[in-house]
């Protein structure tokens, strides 16, 4: 067993625990914090079903962004949907036998890395080219894009340039899922790719990547517009009436 295998096994356990634990904590924290006032951005749906539909449009179509800025919308859609397909495709390394719908996705998932990388490059270019966005960008905004782009490019290189032993790789990950460390193929590019992914998982719960769970908790989007029909009262506000 190589040292690298053991190190990466440890790293991925740590990353998985941090990601799951960190996100669970954040989500619990958001859920626990009351929204004392009705503040949906109107016009807003007047029923729960309507709110689900509104949220779905935000999450799957980026509706507000579409209204706002077509360039950002385009690059974001390319990136996020590319990433989603790529992630789903990667399920093949964690399932045996591979789920049939993952098999079906395989050809799309393989090419989805291209729009993903193009989207990221577009978003990053805007941080340099558009004065307003250059002004608001912090070093971490750049680093985050660099990280994602490096993950995409290293993955693409392994697919198209320097092949990795994916069978052995799969054995490694299936092993991890049984709490069993199998040998990881020795490949610099693979180490890089995996190291970056683990980094991303580690920083996720502490960074602006919290927009992923955050969008579901945004009161301006997830509230039903019915303040006249139903009294809405936060526990701390109810105290004042005692």
């Amino acid at each position, binding site marked *: 067993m190589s040292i690298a295998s053991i190190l990466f096994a440890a790293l991925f356990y740590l990353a998985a625990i941090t990601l799951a634990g960190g996100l669970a904590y954040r989500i619990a924290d958001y859920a626990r914090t009351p929204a004392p006032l009705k503040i949906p951005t109107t016009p807003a749906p007047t029923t729960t079903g309507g709110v689900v539909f509104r949220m779905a449009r935000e999450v799957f179509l980026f509706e507000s962004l579409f209204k706002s800025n077509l360039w*950002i919308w385009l690059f*974001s859609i390319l990136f996020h949907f590319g990433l989603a397909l790529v992630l789903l495709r990667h399920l093949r390394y964690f399932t045996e036998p591979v789920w049939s719908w993952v098999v079906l996705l395989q050809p799309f998932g393989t090419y989805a890395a291209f729009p993903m990388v193009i989207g990221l490059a577009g978003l990053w270019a805007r941080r340099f080219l558009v004065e307003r*966005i250059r002004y608001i960008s912090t070093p971490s905004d750049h680093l985050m894009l660099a990280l994602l782009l490096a993950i995409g490019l290293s993955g693409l290189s392994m697919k198209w340039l320097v092949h990795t032993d994916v069978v052995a790789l799969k054995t490694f990950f299936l092993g991890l899922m049984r709490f069993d460390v199998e040998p990881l193929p020795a490949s610099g590019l693979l180490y890089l790719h995996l190291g970056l992914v683990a980094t991303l998982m580690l920083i996720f719960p502490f960074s602006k990547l919290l927009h992923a769970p955050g969008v579901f908790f945004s009161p301006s989007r997830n509230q039903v517009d019915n303040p006249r029909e139903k009294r809405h009262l936060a526990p701390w506000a109810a105290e004042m009436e005692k």
Partner: protein
Amino acid sequence: MAAEITAPAYRVIPIVPALKPDAMEGVKPFVASEKIQDALGFPGTLPDDWHERAIAKMGELLKKYRSLKVYLDACVHCGACTDKCHYFIGTQDPKNMPVARQDLLRSVYRRYFTLPGKLFPKLVGARDLTKEVLDEWYSYYHQCSECRRCSVFCPYGIDTAEITMAARDILDAVGYGQKYSNEIIGKVHTIGNNLGLPGPALENTMEGLEEDVKEDTGIDVRFPIDVQGAEVLLITPSADFFAEPHIDSLIGYAKVFHAAGVSWTLSSMSSEAANFGLFIGNYEQMRKVALRIRQAALDLGVKRIIVGECGHAWRVAYSFWNTLAGIGAGADDPYALMLQKQLDQRHKQPTHICEYTWDLIQRDALKFDKTKNDHLVITFHDSCNVARASRMGDEPGGQFDIPRNIIRAVANNFVDMDENTIREKTFCCGGGGGLLTDDLLDLRVKGALPRMEALQAVVDSHGVNYLAAICAICKTQFSKTLPYYGFNMRMIGGVHQLVSNAIILENKQ
């Protein structure tokens, strides 16, 4: 501040302007005096331990408001909101871009409340809270009218207004309040309205109005006050009692009530729809102001509460009264039920005056001579709080359609402005959110730019000569800023002013 205030030039094509860093640096409204602060229970001046107090207050708000917490975490700096704020468009100061405005607070939040900000402040744009930062907050959080335009365009619905309110609440908690808003809230607590108009003065004004309308129309239209057992309690911004053009809409409401044959009343104890507690982001103050209305409704035993033309007041009434004071429906606690049982629940509580008038029009209960408005070519300015923070009628978007429907029912010439400047995308008048004070006039003139551009376009293409609005702040702001852009200040008026022009009245017993 420039010695002479002038309007910025129209953009040739409405493109996004180039940045002018620090163009509005140091622009700020007068700070509240100790006396004003005391009256609201805020510290009078900056205490020695202001730093600890400010951080503690931020921590408290983060626990109380999910909006604040989620919005501070979720922003990805995508930049979609950067060109959406009228104050940015008018001033070109990058700190008036919504996300940059949020970052003034977010940077401090990161430093004291998040791990990366504690460990690597530079990397994530975190910074210490210093007196300079506090001054910057005071300046730029008073260059936001809390209009929510940015929240429409943000992929996560991040509402800079929520951040501004939190910042102002923190500022008040360390004795750094704004004179204009806090002085007004004090007047409401002691006298019952923003203007500090006492009951007898109000009665005089109402009697005067009865005489004026009698002279004008020959009809005995009543302006009742403190009438026990009236059906309707009218809560309207106090500017309606004396300011131009506001008063003409008050006359409009009275004529509608007259034509409908309904008994109504004002309350001298609670003669204000405006609630500046919203502007300073303070729940307790906002609640205290709203409680006067609850009290008036209980005291007078009314069945129905109707709210006059006022933007943020309608937001508070529609969205918050039920929460703050149990004025609405659907409660199961004894506190709220006390009033909710008294109110006639066949009607929406509260009702906007436009909902009321439109309902009568639909039932053919009002008669109009539309030609009385033929000298006018009318356009409608959606007020931000009505447009993006409330509703009228049963359908989402009723807040856009109902006022326009009324205008079309009482006048022949109506035209809308550019679709990117109306309805949910409407531009603020430039004077909302507690900024309607002369010490911010320069900002107000600049902030009006996008609305003035859109207005100019319909003036040129259709000869528009009447800008209708249903907000007391919009009316005052436009009266003041229209001339800077070469328009007649009398172009601005209310929707019920048009109703008043056209309505056909009969004498009632």
